[in-house]
């Protein structure tokens, strides 16, 4: 159990390419932090630097009170779950779990006890004598988890561990990882590009873009108050709609938009903040043409084209029949309070 502190962590590859451009982050003891961002944003590099698999070009990395910049991976007291699981194919599941303990000089009975305990927790007891190739994807995933937790490390590092599973299994394993982490209360750092996985798993999210932190916060903080246009577009599905202020100004009769913070020239609106019936609070009224109706069971997505603008926009409603036929005019309402003000040039939230 330990905190992880990153101070000004940078990674510069030979040739001057900067993959990670100065990360400051304090992960508290027992916290589940998710690094999320598009591919190439440096999240995996960052995780591998914490693990000790990549050297740190600049900055200080602390696990607990120790500065671990120069320590070997084994000395950092961490365990990692790899994207492709990295199970040793020539060893049985039992030996896969026991390998790290053997290397650390544990006695046979102690190894046996710990492996049994971990296997029981992950419900892989029946497979202990099997080789990894005889396991399904989900079972391999559990073995990979088992190998991490059998050592009872100070921190777990997860490198997109669910991306090789099918959709159904992914949801199931997501829940199990969350429950396991709640139970063990081990500090965890989890990398994913899937915003839904990030939202559901993390105590806190770190949204990364191009090697820099865009925003750090709890999932709901980030969802409710995205700090930049990038975060707004990345978190939440379907993505937030971005509409120019000039356009909305022409659509609102009264001076609803006058009190937007200075510098605001674009506003974000979540697809579920666009309503088909007028709310009692102050609101905007926009007419559009329904282009496509997408029924997804409990919810529906309406792809519309705004009147007087070519801007494609998505509205999310509860499930059911389309309110109008495709190609017909659809009027929707946006509460004034649902607007997220941004500045287009800086990409930042204005207030």
């Amino acid at each position, binding site marked *: 159990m330990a905190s992880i502190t990153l101070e000004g962590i940078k990674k510069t590859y030979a040739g001057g390419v900067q993959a990670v451009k100065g990360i400051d982050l304090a992960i508290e003891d027992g916290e589940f932090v998710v690094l999320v961002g598009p591919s190439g944003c440096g999240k995996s590099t960052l995780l591998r630097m914490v*693990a*000790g*698999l990549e050297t740190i070009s600049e900055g200080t990395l602390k696990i607990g009170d120790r500065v671990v910049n120069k320590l*070997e*991976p*084994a000395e950092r007291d*961490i*365990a*990692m779950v*790899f*994207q*492709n699981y*990295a199970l*040793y*194919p*020539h060893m049985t599941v039992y030996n896969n779990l026991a*390998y*790290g303990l053997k*290397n*650390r000089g544990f006695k046979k009975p102690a190894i046996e006890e710990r492996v049994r305990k971990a296997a029981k927790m992950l419900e892989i007891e029946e497979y202990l004598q099997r*080789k990894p*190739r005889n396991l399904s994807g989900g079972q391999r995933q559990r073995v990979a988890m088992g*190998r991490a937790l059998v*050592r009872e490390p100070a921190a777990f590092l997860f490198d997109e561990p669910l991306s090789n599973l099918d959709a159904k299994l992914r949801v199931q394993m997501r829940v199990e990882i969350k429950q396991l982490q709640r139970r063990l209360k081990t500090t965890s750092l989890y990398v994913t590009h899937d915003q839904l996985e990030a939202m559901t798993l993390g105590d806190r999210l770190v949204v990364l873009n191009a090697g820099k932190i865009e925003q750090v916060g709890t999932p709901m903080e980030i969802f409710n108050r995205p700090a930049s246009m990038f975060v707004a577009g990345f978190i939440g599905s379907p993505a937030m709609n971005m509409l120019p202020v000039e356009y909305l100004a022409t659509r609102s009769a009264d001076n609803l938009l006058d009190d937007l913070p200075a510098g605001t020239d674009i506003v974000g609106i979540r697809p579920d903040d666009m309503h088909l019936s007028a709310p009692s609070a102050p609101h905007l009224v926009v007419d559009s043409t329904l282009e496509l109706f997408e029924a997804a069971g409990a919810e529906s997505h309406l792809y519309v084209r705004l009147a007087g603008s070519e801007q494609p926009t998505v509205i999310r409603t509860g499930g059911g029949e389309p309110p109008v036929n495709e190609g017909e005019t659809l009027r929707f309402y946006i509460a004034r309070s649902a607007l997220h003000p941004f500045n287009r040039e800086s990409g930042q939230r204005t207030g």
Partner: protein
Amino acid sequence: MQTKRSTYQNRWLPYCLLAPQLIITLVFFIWPASQAVKSSFERTDAFGFKTTFVGLSNYARILSDPSYLNALGRTAIFAVSVTVLSMGLALLLAVCVNRVLRSAKFYTTLLVWPYAVAPVVAGVLWWFLFNPTIGLLPHVLDWFDINWNHRVSGSQAMILITIAAAWKQISYNFLFFLAGLQSVPKSLIEAAAIDGATPFKRFWSIVFPLLSPTTFFLLIININYVMFDTFGVIDATTGGGPGQATMTLVYKVYTDGVAGLNIGSSSAQSVLLMGIVILLTFIQFRYVERRVNY
């Protein structure tokens, strides 16, 4: 496994395409081999006028001949030393090159070169290097008070042919080991590093077991190489001598048949040699292969 099926318009075309290889195999392998089997049951008189069928007596004579049994023993020593030496060094070199990030291609090219050298040329090369009168290495060994003369010392002659034969084979083994090492997923090594294994332990407990199919394949190839292809090396360096010290099975086939004109005995020996190699390969497949596949 899925196989690709080609369809041909003309039903003779596939046979024509196969023919060159088939003809070569028939003329240069099947026909001489069947001749060898046939003449191993015959005895030809000294002038080649009369050939008589003698049944298994050639085989009986060989197997009770001490010089044949000696050659068998020496071949076993030779085979084991060459295989261990060439595979061991090749693995070491492959591990080194695999760790080099830059110029790995350059090293690979250099290390593969010896394979292009013909066995006889390799033999001559080492013969020069170890030549007691003009060679460089005996001169160097002299500083350490080692008197090198493979024309006199049987064990030194054996060392010479072992080095010459292994040197050529290192290139081949190296290529396969390098390919094998590169196909070991990097994340496995990383996982082992996190699991607290030292680099040495990582190699022996993770990498080496994963290389075992390659090692097994090379084991068979190397033993076959030693049994048959080292003829040129021996012929160019020691010629089987001094005495019988480097007389291996394949060289004895040649000496007895071509030099000694004892066709019957030589044929029987070659049939036995083939039998030994087939048996060894069979044993390896039967007992080793099932352990190396994970």
